[in-house]
C-alpha cells in the first residue's frame, strides 16, 4: 500500500514536471512538421535554416522545423493515417489529391499559392556512363537492342511516374499524337529494364554502386547530384529532345493546422518558398526555380534548355493520368500482362 502510494506520488510529480517542461518549451518555440518526398533531404535542410531566420526576424520567435522524407506514396499513407503533418511538399499533384480524398486538405489548395502551388520544378533526364559508350542521345535510343535501362517502379515511386510519362510524351509527339504507338514505345522501354527498384534513390544506387545498366532515367536533380558526387570522369548527363515538366506541389494540411492553431506559421513557411533567397536555394540544390530571373545566372547554367511538356496539356492532369496509367489494371499493369 505504501509502496503503491509512493509510486503514485512519484509518477504524478514526474508527469507534472514533464508537462511543465513541454509547455515551457512550446511557449518559447514554434514547431512545424513538413512531410516531403525522398530526394529533398538536402534541399529542405537548407531551406528550414533559411525560414527559421526569416520567421525570427518577422515575429521574434524561434521555430523548430522537422522534415520527414521517404517514397511519396508511403508518405501520403502515413499522413492519412495520422502523422501530424502541418505542410506537405510532394512530387506529384496526385499525391496531395490522395490526402484531399482523405479529407485532411480542402479542395482548391492549388490556388492558395502562386503558379498552382508549385514553387519549383524539375524534369527527367538521362544519366550515362562516362564517354557515353552506347551513344545514347534521345528516348528512341533506349529501345535499341544492346541497351539496358534503369528506372524505378511507377507503382511505388513518384519519380518513376514522371519517367514513364516523359517517355510517353516523347513518342506521342514524334508520332503526331498516336496513343497506341506511345503505349507500344513505353512497353518496349520496360522490356529493357532488368530491375525495377521501389524508389528513385534505389535505382540510382543500382546504376551507380552496382554498375547495372547503360542508362538511368532520373530526376534532373538526382542526375546532377550524382555527377557532382562522382565527377564527370564517371558519369555524364544526356538531355533528351523532349521531357516532362515535373511540377512539385505544396499544400497546407488544413485539418491539422486548424486543430493546432498553426495556420499562420504553415502559410508563412510555404509562402517563403517564393522569395528570391529561396529560389536561389532551389537552384543551388539542382531544382529548377519558378522565377529564374531572381536567381544568379551562374546557378542556372546547370539547367539546359529543352522542350518540356505539362501533365495538364498531354495527359489531362493527374486526376486522369493516375487512374489511367498507374492504378491497378491501368496501362502500366497492362504492359506487363501483354507478353
Amino acid at each position, binding site marked *: 500500500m505504501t509502496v503503491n502510494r509512493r509510486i503514485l506520488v512519484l509518477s504524478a510529480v514526474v508527469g507534472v514536471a514533464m508537462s511543465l517542461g513541454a509547455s515551457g518549451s512550446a511557449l518559447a518555440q514554434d514547431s512545424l512538421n513538413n512531410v516531403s518526398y525522398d530526394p529533398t533531404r538536402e534541399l529542405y535542410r537548407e531551406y528550414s535554416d533559411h525560414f527559421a531566420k526569416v520567421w525570427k526576424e518577422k515575429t521574434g520567435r524561434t521555430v523548430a522545423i522537422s522534415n520527414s522524407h521517404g517514397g511519396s*506514396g*508511403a508518405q501520403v*499513407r502515413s499522413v*492519412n493515417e495520422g502523422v501530424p503533418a502541418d505542410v506537405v511538399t510532394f512530387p506529384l499533384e496526385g499525391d496531395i489529391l*490522395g490526402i484531399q480524398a482523405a479529407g485532411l486538405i480542402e479542395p482548391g489548395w492549388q490556388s492558395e499559392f502562386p503558379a498552382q502551388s508549385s514553387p519549383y520544378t524539375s524534369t527527367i533526364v538521362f544519366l550515362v556512363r562516362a564517354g557515353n559508350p552506347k551513344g545514347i542521345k534521345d528516348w528512341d535510343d533506349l529501345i535499341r537492342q544492346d541497351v539496358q535501362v534503369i528506372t524505378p*517502379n511507377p*507503382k*511505388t515511386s513518384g519519380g518513376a511516374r514522371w519517367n514513364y510519362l516523359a517517355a510517353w510524351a516523347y513518342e506521342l509527339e514524334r508520332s503526331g499524337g498516336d496513343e497506341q504507338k506511345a503505349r507500344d514505345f513505353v512497353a518496349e522501354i520496360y522490356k529493357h*529494364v*532488368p*530491375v*525495377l*527498384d*521501389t524508389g528513385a534513390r*534505389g535505382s540510382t*544506387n543500382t546504376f551507380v*554502386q*552496382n*554498375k*547495372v545498366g547503360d542508362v538511368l532515367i532520373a530526376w534532373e536533380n538526382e542526375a546532377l547530384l550524382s555527377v557532382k558526387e562522382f565527377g564527370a570522369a564517371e558519369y555524364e548527363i544526356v538531355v533528351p529532345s523532349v521531357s516532362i515538366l515535373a511540377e512539385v506541389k505544396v499544400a497546407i494540411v488544413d485539418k491539422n493546422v486548424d486543430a493546432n492553431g498553426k495556420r499562420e506559421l504553415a502559410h508563412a513557411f510555404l509562402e517563403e518558398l517564393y522569395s528570391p533567397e529561396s529560389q536561389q536555394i532551389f537552384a543551388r540544390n539542382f531544382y529548377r526555380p519558378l522565377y529564374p530571373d531572381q536567381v544568379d545566372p551562374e546557378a542556372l547554367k546547370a539547367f539546359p534548355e529543352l522542350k518540356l511538356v505539362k501533365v495538364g496539356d498531354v495527359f489531362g492532369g493527374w486526376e486522369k493520368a493516375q487512374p489511367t496509367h498507374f*492504378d*491497378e489494371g491501368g496501362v502500366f*499493369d497492362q504492359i*506487363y*500482362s501483354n507478353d
Partner: protein
Amino acid sequence: MTRIRFREPSIIPGFRLTFGFTILYLFLIVIVPIVGLYMKTFELDWPSFWRILTGSRFQAALKLSFGASLLAALFNVVIGLLIAWVIVRYRFFARRLVDAIIDLPFALPTAVAGIALTALYVPQGWIGRLFSPYGITIAYTPLGIWIALVFIGLPFVVRTVQPVLEDFNAEVEEAAATLGASRLTTIVRVILPALLPAILTGFSLAFARAVGEYGSVIFIAGNIPRQTEILPLLIVFRLEERDYAAASAIAAIMLTVSFLILLLVNLIQSWSNRRFGNV
C-alpha cells in the same frame, strides 16, 4: 463415468494467473491483428476476391514466393544439419567463432543484408563476376531471391538441431555399431530419426521466415512482374494504391497457405513421433 475436467489438478501454484496472462497476451498480440486482417479481407465482394486469386501476376508471385522459400528451407536443412554436426561433434580452432557467426543473419538488419548481397552478386560484383562469363546472372533473377532466403534462414536449422545433437547419447551409436550396423545405417536409422523433430521445426521456422521476408529480398529481386516479383511486394503495391482490402486479401491468402504448409509439417512431425517414438 469420467468427468471431463478443464484441467488436471496440479501441485504447482499460480495456474490461474499464468494461464490468464498467457491467453490475454496471445489474444492481444497475435489473435487481434490476424482477425483484423481477415475482417478487412471480408470487405471485398466475392468477384473481386476471385479476381485477385486468379490473377496471373498474383499466381506467378505466389509460386515464386512459396517455391523459393521451400527450396531455400530445404537447402538450409541439408547445410544446417551439416554445420550443426561439425560444430557439435568436432573440436577445432575457432569453433566458438564459427558458432557465433551462425547468428549473424539474425542480427543484421535485413535491408543491409539485401544491399550487401546485391552488391556481391551483380555481374560486376565480387561473386557475380565469377559467374557472368558463363552466362549465369544471379542478382535480379529467382536465383538471387533464393540466395537471400538461404542467407536469412540459415540460423534456424542449425540452432534447433544443435542442442538435440549435443544431448544425443553417443552410447546409442556405439550400441548400433556393436550390433553390426554400418556407419551409414547408424546415421539413417539411428541418428536422423532422433533429429527429425528438430529438423522439421528448423525447416518450419526457416520456411515461415522466408515467405514473409521483404527487406533483404527486395534489393536482390529484380521486381519484374511475373518473373521476379514476390508476394509481399504485391501487398506493398496495393497499400500504395490505398487499396487496403486487396492488400489484406493477399496477406490473408499468404497466411492461409503458410498455415496449411506448417500444419502439414506438424502432422509429419507427430507421425514421426509415433513411428520412431518420442526421442
